[in-house]
């Protein structure tokens, strides 16, 4: 490292991005480009920062694999802050491996965390879980409180999306401690925000007499693991104990299940089932035949969870072992609430899949999504037909641009 690079890194470490820039503003050698990029990122000039970091990465020679890898990591973090998720994670993971091999554990860990956050933002929960497991395996090696806080926030997000509220809460507790030790107010605020989201009503439960009760996420989770047969109109599926049958892609079957559950222990007349599942008020013989077919399909799918019996006027739900039947609805009525409830699983949904699940037209769903997007309640990735919709992340990750300030680019 030469003297101006050292002076620049020293300025960056004290948060003096302008002072850092002043020292290397006119230099075009790779270490200077890298530090200019980081200073620009800290000043919020993310697009310019990414360009500088790319040039720096290209400029480092074959002998300077570590410096190049650090540039790749910094560039990936800037891309993440820009919410540009189009790049392949391969480069980032390769950089992580290089840094690990070179003994730069802190930055290797940093790279893995960026990869995990990227997967979470893309709704690729399995990929995120895999990366976070790699992070966990390195626990205690090169973990600064700052990285620890980010790791725990990511774990919390993953647990939240997988409906493991206990694990999410525990991860948030650890994140809060780490954020406090790191002394970064923005991170502390993110943890507090995530905790509030965890305590917000996540669903409604129908109770006797047409009454409703608000449920928090942990109450939903408790119901889903209870032996009760739960018909979940948030995630569009049925659960009993550990068993889960998704019906998001079978809207007619789900509508039938929902009607049967609402009437339980009573039965539902054929006309009522036809009206709600096929959306028609004038049923004829063909509808009755179709109903028989659909009920047969539903019966086959949910056989491990419950049975469906014919009654004098229609059908009745018969959960195994005669346990309770519970209906869970989105926290509020309406298309938008249903959309949000579906997206609550953290996966990336196409417009057509959402329309299918809700039994609404794509146009209607698109309109609702556009309104939600304007409110910041959903976000889109990809363009045109490749566009996918996701719930906003539990934690923003925007506030803390964690580029290691004094990352030495020797």
């Amino acid at each position, binding site marked *: *490292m*030469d*003297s*101006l*690079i*050292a*002076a620049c*890194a*020293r300025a960056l*470490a004290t948060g003096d991005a302008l002072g850092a820039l002043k*020292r290397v503003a006119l*230099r075009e*050698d790779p*270490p200077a480009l890298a530090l200019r990029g980081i200073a620009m990122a800290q000043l919020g000039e993310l697009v310019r920062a990414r360009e500088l970091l790319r040039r720096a990465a290209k400029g480092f*020679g*074959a*002998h*300077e*694999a*570590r*410096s190049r890898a650090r540039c790749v990591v910094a560039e990936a973090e800037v891309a993440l802050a820009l919410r540009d998720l189009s790049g392949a994670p391969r480069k980032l993971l390769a950089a992580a491996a290089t840094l690990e091999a*070179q*003994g730069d554990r802190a930055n290797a860990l940093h790279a893995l965390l960026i990869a995990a956050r990227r997967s979470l933002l893309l709704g690729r929960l399995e990929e995120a879980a895999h990366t976070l497991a790699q992070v966990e395996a390195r626990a205690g090696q090169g973990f600064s409180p700052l990285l620890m806080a980010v790791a725990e926030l990511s774990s919390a997000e993953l647990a939240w999306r997988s409906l493991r509220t206990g694990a999410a809460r525990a991860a948030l507790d650890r994140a809060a401690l780490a954020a406090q030790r790191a002394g970064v107010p923005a991170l502390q605020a993110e943890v507090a925000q995530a905790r509030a989201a965890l305590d917000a009503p996540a669903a409604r439960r129908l109770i006797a007499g047409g009454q409703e009760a608000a449920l928090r996420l942990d109450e939903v989770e408790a119901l889903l693991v209870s032996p009760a047969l739960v018909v979940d109109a948030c995630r569009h599926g049925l659960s009993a104990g550990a068993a889960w049958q998704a019906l998001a892609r079978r809207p007619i079957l789900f509508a039938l299940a929902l009607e049967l559950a609402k009437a339980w222990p009573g039965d539902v007349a054929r006309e009522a089932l036809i009206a709600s599942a096929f959306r028609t008020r004038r049923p004829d013989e063909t509808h009755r035949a179709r109903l028989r077919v659909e009920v047969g399909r539903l019966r086959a799918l949910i056989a491990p969870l419950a049975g469906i019996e014919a009654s004098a006027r229609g059908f009745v739900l018969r959960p195994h072992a005669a346990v309770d039947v519970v209906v869970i609805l989105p926290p509020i009525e309406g298309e938008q609430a249903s959309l949000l409830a579906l997206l609550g699983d953290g996966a990336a949904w196409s417009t057509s899949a959402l329309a299918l699940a809700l039994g609404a037209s794509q146009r209607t769903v698109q309109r609702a999504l556009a309104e939600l997007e304007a409110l910041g309640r959903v976000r889109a990735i990809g363009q045109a037909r490749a566009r996918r919709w996701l719930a906003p992340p539990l934690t923003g990750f925007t506030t803390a641009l964690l580029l290691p300030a*004094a990352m*030495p680019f*020797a």
Partner: protein
Amino acid sequence: MKTPSSSPAEIVREYGPFDGAPNVAGVSYDGSRVWVALGAQLAAIDPQSGETKRTLDHASDAGTAFDGTHLYQIAESRIDKIDPVSGQVLKSIPAPGKGNDSGLTWAEGSLWVGQYRDRKIVQIDPETGAVKRSIESNRFVTGVTWVDGEFWHGTWEGEESELRRIDLTNGAVLERLAMPSGVGVSGLEADGADLFYCGGGESGKLRAVRRPRRAAKGEGA
């Protein structure tokens, strides 16, 4: 010209990391204490006990040198001449690399400055900063030092570091000591006896390395 093969450097002792300093940028020796440039401070270390005897608050981003009375320190793009007793800056001259400078040593009335990515060693007048001559190396140059008429410099390219003795008339490499993998040399000074002191860059360490003896040619060490 054939480059001699390298032999492994023998690290005798490690010091640091030092309080609040992630980096060791430069190293010098004043006859009893090792001065290390720690970024925002210059610290004098007792090589026997390893204790920090004195610190001067002074920007110290790269090489450090001692001329018998004064310290010279590269800070940003200048070289400061410092009174080691008062810590006062007596004079500043522009660094020849305008900030690309890394290593610094004093010998026979000249300052010798290593220029990192330029792979150069420059001899300058300590009063005016005027360049007397410059020598090319084929590696990134970090620390530079003179001992017993031998010129040595540290290299740090990527993840590999060496101590090299070179012939300043033609830049030929005469001897190479390879540092262990992942151990960098960011500053270099000989203690006049049988040790080199090497700054360890971002490891924040200072290392003592044994200087090869010349017994074979009957010169003694």
